């Protein structure tokens, strides 16, 4: 057998290059898995599509968007709603990342990775990159469905792409939260439910589905400063969609900056915690 003794040293790449390379190797692995388990991707798409349809047709006529012309019209609400659904969809990447990493721990794969001379964060970064690809796919399908039910953009394609960029960035940030949850709970089942439950208060106490102007003052303050609301508001602006009566809170006045800042903060905090946890994780 021709053995490659010493190969490890000879090809030891410089650190940052190695980190990127290792992350891509792991991302590729996770993308292959997604291709082999298409059900996961299909369900990830069906769920938000269902939300679009339910909210559009069930709540559509009942929720007025104050401050808009023809506030009661279902089309106004649909256009108001869509940014909220997009944002909610990208945050669901959390559950995927968490379940995937917990599954790897469970199956002992994390042990294999941890015994290899690979970059520290690469297993997690690779996973979050793969989830980002899946989220982008989901959002694309969702956008088509949204157009079919009457959603339109009014401020041009570049601003639309900027909005999708913000959404995906938020989704990426949230997948780091998922990674930390996955490493903490250790079983895929717990990671899925643990990754989802806290998303409900987060996405509902926000401007995603109903205007915050109708909320009690305390909830409204929470909603205005919710990272999630900032992205939703930024998207509404960038799409040129109805916004309702916008609060005076800083994040609502500067939603693009607020959204970017929140995403960066979430990544910094949760990536740091997750990578630390990964290094000491034991299945």
């Amino acid at each position, binding site marked *: 057998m021709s053995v490659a003794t010493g190969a490890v*040293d000879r090809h030891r790449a410089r650190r940052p290059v190695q980190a990127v390379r290792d992350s891509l190797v792991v991302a590729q692995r996770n993308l292959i898995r997604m291709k082999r388990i298409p059900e996961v991707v299909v369900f990830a798409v069906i769920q938000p599509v269902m939300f679009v349809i339910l909210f559009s047709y069930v709540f559509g006529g009942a929720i007025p968007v104050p401050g808009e012309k023809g506030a009661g019209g279902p089309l106004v609400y649909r256009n108001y709603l869509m940014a909220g659904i997009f944002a909610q969809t990208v945050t669901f990447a959390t559950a995927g990342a968490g379940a995937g990493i917990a599954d790897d721990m469970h199956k002992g794969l994390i*042990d*294999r990775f941890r*015994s290899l001379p690979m970059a520290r964060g690469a297993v997690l970064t690779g996973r979050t990159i793969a989830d980002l690809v899946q989220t982008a796919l989901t959002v694309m399908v969702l956008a088509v469905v949204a157009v079919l039910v009457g959603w339109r953009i009014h401020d041009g394609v570049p601003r639309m792409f900027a909005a999708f960029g913000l959404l995906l960035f938020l989704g990426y940030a949230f997948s780091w939260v998922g990674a930390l949850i996955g490493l903490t709970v250790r079983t895929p089942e717990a990671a899925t439910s643990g990754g989802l439950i806290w998303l409900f208060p987060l996405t509902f106490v926000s401007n995603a589905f109903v205007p915050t102007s109708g909320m009690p003052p305390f909830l409204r303050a929470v909603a205005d400063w919710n990272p999630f609301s900032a992205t939703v508001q930024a998207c509404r602006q960038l799409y040129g969609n109805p916004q309702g009566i916008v609060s005076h809170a800083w994040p609502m006045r500067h939603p693009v900056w607020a959204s970017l800042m929140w995403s960066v903060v979430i990544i910094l905090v949760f990536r740091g915690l997750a990578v630390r946890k990964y290094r000491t994780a034991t299945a």
Partner: protein
Amino acid sequence: MPGAIHAEGLVKTFGDVRALDGVDLDVAEGTVLGLLGPNGAGKTTAVRVLTTLLRPDAGRAVVAGLDVVRQPDEVRRSIGLSGQFAAVDEYLTGRENLRMVGRLYQLRGRQAKARAGELLERFHLADAADRPARTYSGGMRRRLDLAAALVVSPPVMFMDEPTTGLDPRNRQQMWEVIEELVAAGTTLLLTTQYLEEADRLAHDICVIDHGRVIARGSSDELKARTGGERVEVVVHDRAMTGTAAEVMTGFMAGGASGGGATVEQHTRRITVPVSGGAKLLAEVIRELDARGIEIDDIGLRRPTLDDVFLWLTGHAAQDAGAAEDAGAARDAGPAAEERDGR
């Protein structure tokens, strides 16, 4: 010079369980250490500590000259691991699994690909190479996992029960692969439940129980400590086992360490430690015949590692409960020595 693997006083506790309770290990470069012990003895925990997957609570371990706690990244560059449970991605094909591991060992894409091909041939997985590992049988997965541990041939390898679940042919082939690796200079720490495997592969053997080393030495040394030859007789009539045992006790070697005659009622088997070899065997047969005891089988047996294992771990279990046995055990067994030494 310290060996390729050197550990001192390793302690690891999980709650109330002291999985490692002061383990010292030393594996010289280019040799194989067989780590034996009953289920739950702490073998896997020891491997996980030495491969940087677990931090020890106390003690120190150096692998390939690198401290596992202070230089884990450097250690990982010098080791290969095949864990107790196959760690392969079920949704990736065998080839994809090996290529991924190759890339993560920092091989170039083309090298990783070539290496994967070689290993698939080598481990008889070429036919299944492009099927997801999920469709592999248990033994195939095990082989894929071993192949993954051998993608680069690092100077120090750890294999936790590498041949569990392999059929005899594949086990034999795995042994050959391991022997080649060692011949090429690899240092190996191997845990196993197959004592025949330890006998064949390991230069040194270390038996642990309850997280402590209870014996160490070469396979021959351990066998010698267990006692010399024994005569084993299977009597035809179960009612005669008592008489036969009495007769055979008369032939027992003075000061033999294996205790008195052991009688297994259900198999009608009586075993006594002896010294005197084949000549003695003839005498035993004559004496039994004179007493009218009909025998089905008789033989002279050298101790196997199985005997060593059962004897050592049996003693350890008894000692925990019975203090009065300690005196006898001290004369007889290294189990007691090790414990008293601390």
